Structure formats: structure tokens, C-alpha cells
């Protein structure tokens, strides 16, 4: 397909609020998971990946949208504002669109309001209704083109990128800000605990003794464009090369064990990018650390790409950020392409013998890497795979 330039990207997670902070934590092998105590989920019985900075309030015109989710989103959009202001001369605001992925929106604030007073007086429409996060994003970046939210649970951020790519390819927009966000909340914490897929200790993706996931929170944004403006930033040219999306048609929460659905979307993404499996130099795996996901995903990778492509899950660093996971992991994948260094799979000490994919236990130098993939899978068997590329 015609590739779509990525003009900027950001990430907010337990690792930090800037790309550099993410880079430093990944290189140091330093997890963002907090084993003891959480300010957002006090008394949580498992580690969580919490954003531990004070979140600035929204600008006054958007104050009624206030929630932890909206503040995380604002934090992810903030570093891209200079870029977007610079683009406004080339691309008018009515050609700037916004697509945001989220799986829980302002649920954490709703929970507090419900505990306090049965949520009496809670402004649902601005603080919780899922579309509200696109209103916040559009307001923050000054977009006057179409804005909407995509919500497909843990693949929301990737589905948002796919919708944004379609808006560009159909000529509806010239630039689309793709964002994704989720805040920690009790609903998801106790929901996953109830499913029996939460590790009470730090999660261990692809480890033989893994017990489940840890939750995280975060936000991320990509600036996708129909073409690269003439005055580039001088850095390597990043682009969205392709995507795959499909349904497993198997189970609402369990993955299809042979990884057929995962393999299909990876193969589709490669075909759409018009590359071959051997062109893919890295896969950022969904890698939740649940026994079922990791085995199925490994099988899918081997089917679609073979056993040799370097892979890692970065959820041992960030926890599973649900609707924000695909976005933050896309930014980590782009960072790997720029740095030519592939991040390690933190938490895997003894590789599961059923895992045949090549899981990186240490960072790996990847000079000349051109393409990398990021997988995200979700409830309902909603599978996605994005392929990113770089030209130096």
C-alpha cells in the first residue's frame, strides 16, 4: 500500500512521560511496575504500572471534561503541539482529524463518584461517555476535521490507527492525530482478577512459570499524514506500512490456542505493506503474560513470520495498558526502528518450552532494521497487527 508518514509520536506510561524516559528505562531494564502501593488503586493486591507524576489539569475551556483519563491524554498530546502548530501552515485545521482509542474512558473517576455519593451529579457526558475523549483531543490540538473514538478493548489504539489511515487514504483528512488512552480503574483490576488471569507478582511474559498480567495505564499519540511535508525534521522518515485486522470467532476472552487468528492478521499486515516475512526485523508482541495468550501468540508468530524474527513483549515494563497498550507499544516500536536497538522482554527468566518464537531476553542491536511489527489482541477475538517502517 501507499505508506503513510508518521510525523511525530509520544508515549506516557509507568516508564515516564517522554520518549527519552521510555528509552532510558527500557535500556536499563527498569520496570515501571510498582510492587508496593498504588496511589490510583490504593491497596491493590497486585503490581500496577502507574503514571507517577502529577497530572496537570486540562485547560480551562476543557475543564468540564476532567478525568484521570483525559489528563493522561493531554499529557501524551502535549509534546506534539509544536509539531502540530508547525503543520498548521501547510494543513488547515479542517483537514486535521482525530481518532482516539480507549477501552474505559473516565471510568476511574466514575468509580470514585459512585463510592462517594452514588455518582449523584456526575457529569457522565463529559467525563465518562467514551466519545468525550475525542472531544478533549480535538480541543487540545485544535482539530476541526472529523473526530471520533474507537473502542475495541485492548486493541483500541491499533484500531484507531487503522481508522486514521483509512481517513487519510480516502482523502477525508490530510493529517490525523491518532491517540490512545486508558487510566487504571477498579473495574478492570477486579475484572481481570475475577477472570483468574492476574499475576499477584510482577508479570513474566513468555516465562514457563508465568501466571498472568499486571495492569498499567498510559497514553500515546501518533501524527499520521497523507504525505511528508517538504521541511522534514531531519531525522529518519518513519511510516505506517501496513496493518491487519480480523476476528478469531472463537471465544470472548480466550485466544484461539493455535494462534491462527494472530497469524492471519500478521500475514495481512505484511501483505498490505508489500513486504515479505523476512523483512520484519522485530515484533513487539501483545505478550500479556497470561498462559493462554503467550502460547497462542508465539504459535501465530511462527506461522506468519517463522521462528527467527526477534520478538519481545514490553508489558513487563509497563503492565497491560488496555486501550492505551497498542499506542504506547507502537511508540516503543518506532523508537526501536529509530535507535536500531530492540528492547528486551523483561520478566522472562525461563522460557516456556512451548514458545518457539525468538523472545529477546536482552536488548539486541539491529543495525539497518527497516520494518517492525506491533501486535494487539482484545476481548471478542479482535486481533490487530501494525507494520511500521523507516527510511534513513
Amino acid at each position, binding site marked *: 500500500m501507499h505508506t503513510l508518514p508518521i510525523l511525530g509520536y509520544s508515549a506516557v506510561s509507568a516508564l515516564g512521560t517522554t520518549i527519552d524516559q521510555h528509552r532510558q528505562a527500557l535500556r536499563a531494564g527498569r520496570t515501571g511496575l510498582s510492587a508496593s502501593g498504588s496511589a490510583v488503586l490504593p491497596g491493590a493486591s497486585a503490581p500496577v504500572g502507574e503514571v507517577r507524576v502529577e497530572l496537570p489539569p486540562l485547560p480551562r475551556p476543557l475543564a468540564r471534561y476532567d478525568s484521570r483519563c483525559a489528563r493522561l491524554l493531554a499529557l501524551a498530546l502535549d509534546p506534539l503541539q509544536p509539531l502540530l502548530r508547525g503543520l498548521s501552515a501547510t494543513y488547515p*485545521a*479542517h483537514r486535521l482529524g*482525530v481518532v482516539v482509542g480507549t*477501552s474505559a474512558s473516565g471510568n476511574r473517576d*466514575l*468509580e470514585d*463518584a*459512585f*463510592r462517594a455519593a*452514588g*455518582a*449523584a451529579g*456526575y457529569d*457522565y*457526558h463529559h467525563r465518562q*461517555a*467514551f*466519545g*468525550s475523549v*475525542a*472531544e478533549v483531543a480535538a480541543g487540545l490540538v485544535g*482539530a*476541526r*476535521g*472529523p*473526530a*471520533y*473514538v*474507537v*473502542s*475495541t*478493548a485492548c486493541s483500541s489504539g491499533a484500531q484507531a490507527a*487503522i*481508522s486514521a489511515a*483509512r*481517513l487519510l*487514504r*480516502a*482523502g*477525508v483528512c490530510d493529517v490525523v492525530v491518532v491517540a490512545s488512552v486508558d487510566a487504571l480503574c*477498579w*473495574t478492570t483490576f*477486579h*475484572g481481570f482478577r*475475577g*477472570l483468574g488471569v492476574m499475576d499477584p507478582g510482577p508479570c513474566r511474559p513468555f516465562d514457563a512459570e508465568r501466571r498472568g498480567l499486571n495492569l498499567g495505564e498510559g497514553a500515546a499519540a501518533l501524527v499520521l499524514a497523507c504525505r511528508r511535508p517538504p521541511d522534514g525534521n531531519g531525522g529518519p522518515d518513519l511510516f505506517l506500512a501496513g496493518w491487519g*485486522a*480480523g*476476528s*478469531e*470467532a472463537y*471465544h*470472548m*476472552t480466550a485466544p484461539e490456542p493455535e494462534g491462527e487468528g494472530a497469524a*492471519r492478521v500478521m500475514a495481512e499486515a505484511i501483505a498490505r505493506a508489500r513486504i515479505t516475512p523476512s523483512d520484519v526485523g522485530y515484533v513487539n508482541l501483545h505478550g500479556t503474560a497470561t498462559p493462554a495468550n503467550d502460547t497462542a501468540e508465539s504459535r501465530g508468530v511462527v506461522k506468519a513470520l517463522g521462528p527467527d524474527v526477534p520478538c519481545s513483549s514490553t508489558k513487563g515494563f509497563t503492565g497491560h495498558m488496555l486501550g492505551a497498550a497498542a499506542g504506547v507499544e507502537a511508540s516503543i516500536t518506532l523508537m526501536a526502528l529509530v535507535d536500531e536497538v530492540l528492547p528486551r522482554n523483561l520478566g522472562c527468566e525461563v522460557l516456556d518450552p512451548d514458545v518457539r518464537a525468538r523472545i529477546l531476553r536482552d536488548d539486541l542491536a539491529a543495525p539497518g532494521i527497516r520494518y517492525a511489527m506491533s501486535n494487539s489482541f*482484545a*476481548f*471478542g*477475538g*479482535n486481533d490487530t497487527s501494525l507494520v511500521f517502517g523507516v527510511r534513513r
Partner: protein
Amino acid sequence: MKGFPIVGAAGLLDGTRPILGEALPGDDEFIPKNVRRRISRLIAQALRVTRDAGGLDASPEAPLVFATANGEINTIGAILPALMPAQPQVSPTLFHNSVHNAAPGYWAILSKRLAASTTVTMGKASFEAAMLDAWTRLADGDPEVQVTAGDEAITAAPWADPPHCTGDFCGSLRIVQPGDGPRLGRLVSVTFLPGRDEGFDPVAEAGKVGATEVADDPGTLPGGAAHPCAGAAAVLAFLLRPGAAGRMLLARRSPAGGRFVLVVEREAHG
């Protein structure tokens, strides 16, 4: 000819009444009892209209775009009290039903379809935003797209005030690439007009595209219930109503500013 043929349409009010015409056959075979016990009214109705619009006959590559303003808001309303005790217990079924893409997930499982699905939400413009999303997929070459839109009356979330959804409604449209097959009508265009209210005249806009019917920010269903997907109900009623060929324009203010504008054409049918 510009636009994309609409080859299937179905709408359901209050979970039982077709938006027009006679009641359709029951759905006992399609939704097994053990599934029916577990799912919300919204999911059940979304499954039914997706099937009734011809979803089982769709191309294997046809994505499903689900539109909903509030999603599983009543399920969230049921979960919140379960978070209050000292030892909170959230039912796994309620939890996985609480996501906005629960209905497309069940659809894939029950119909055994492997095609992509997504869920679009944007308040009262959820249906219209989903139609834009579908339009871009068709423009990009997808063989067909099914759009299913719906919300259920808010009954278990008193905090969702004001109650802008007081009835159940789900509707579905199958839209395909141009061809020679039978059709109900045509999706002529989906556009987005930036800006606020100044200068927008829906009747004048309709005149420009030859539309004889206009729905400008509809907020109620046939029968009067407030509903965020009232635009979908208006389109379905227009398409399915017997009569001469015609065009309608649906304009919808986006909560983020600007308007989605849909133009739909109906074939004459008796």
C-alpha cells in the same frame, strides 16, 4: 455512479418491533440459549439486526463497524456496586460484556466470521461517525461493510444524566461496492463539514444534492423515545418505507464541532 449500493437493512425498536413492516422470524437458532442468558439487550438486538440485514451472506472479508453512544452502560451500572464491598467480586461475564466491542465479538463467534470488526463511538454522532468510517473502508477497496448501530435504554445508570436514551433501538445496513445486484438504495455520500452552526442550512444543503427529505440532528425514534442513534433510525425508515425513489439528507452535529452529512438514496419499491 457515485456512491455505494445498500443491499441490506434492518431495524428493531424495543427489542421486538421491526422499524417498519412485519415481525421477523425468531432468533432462537442463531443465539443459543446459553448465550442469550449471558448477553445484554443491546448485544441481543445488535446480533439480530446484523443477521436480519443479511450479515450471514456478506463477503468473508466484509468488516463490521459497530456504532454505539453508550455501549454497555447498564453493564457498567451493574458492575459499580460490586466494587464497593471489602472483597469486590466482578462477574467475569459482566466484565467481558462491559466492553464496547462485546456485540461484534459475539457476532464473530456466532456467525463464525473472521472478518475485522471495530466499534465507533461519538455521542449522538456515533452512527454518523461510523458511517464515515465505513465510507473510508469502501473508498479504500473493502468489498463491503456492514454498519450496525444501537443503544439500549439507560435503566441501570442513573448517573448518566440527562437521560438521552429512553428506548431500545438497533439498526444495520449492508453496503457494497458498485455492481449489478439487487439493492435497496445507495449511500451517495458521507462528508464532514467543519465549523459551528453559522451558515449551515440543511434544506439548502438538501437542495444541492437533490434530497427531498431532511433529517437535521434527529433525537427521537419513531414513537418518540429519545435515542442517540436516531439518525440510523431515520435512514432505515427512509430506505425501507414503500414508495417512490428519493433521496434524504441526514445532518448531525458532532460533539467536537462540525457536522457529519450523509446522503442516502432509496430505490422505488412497493
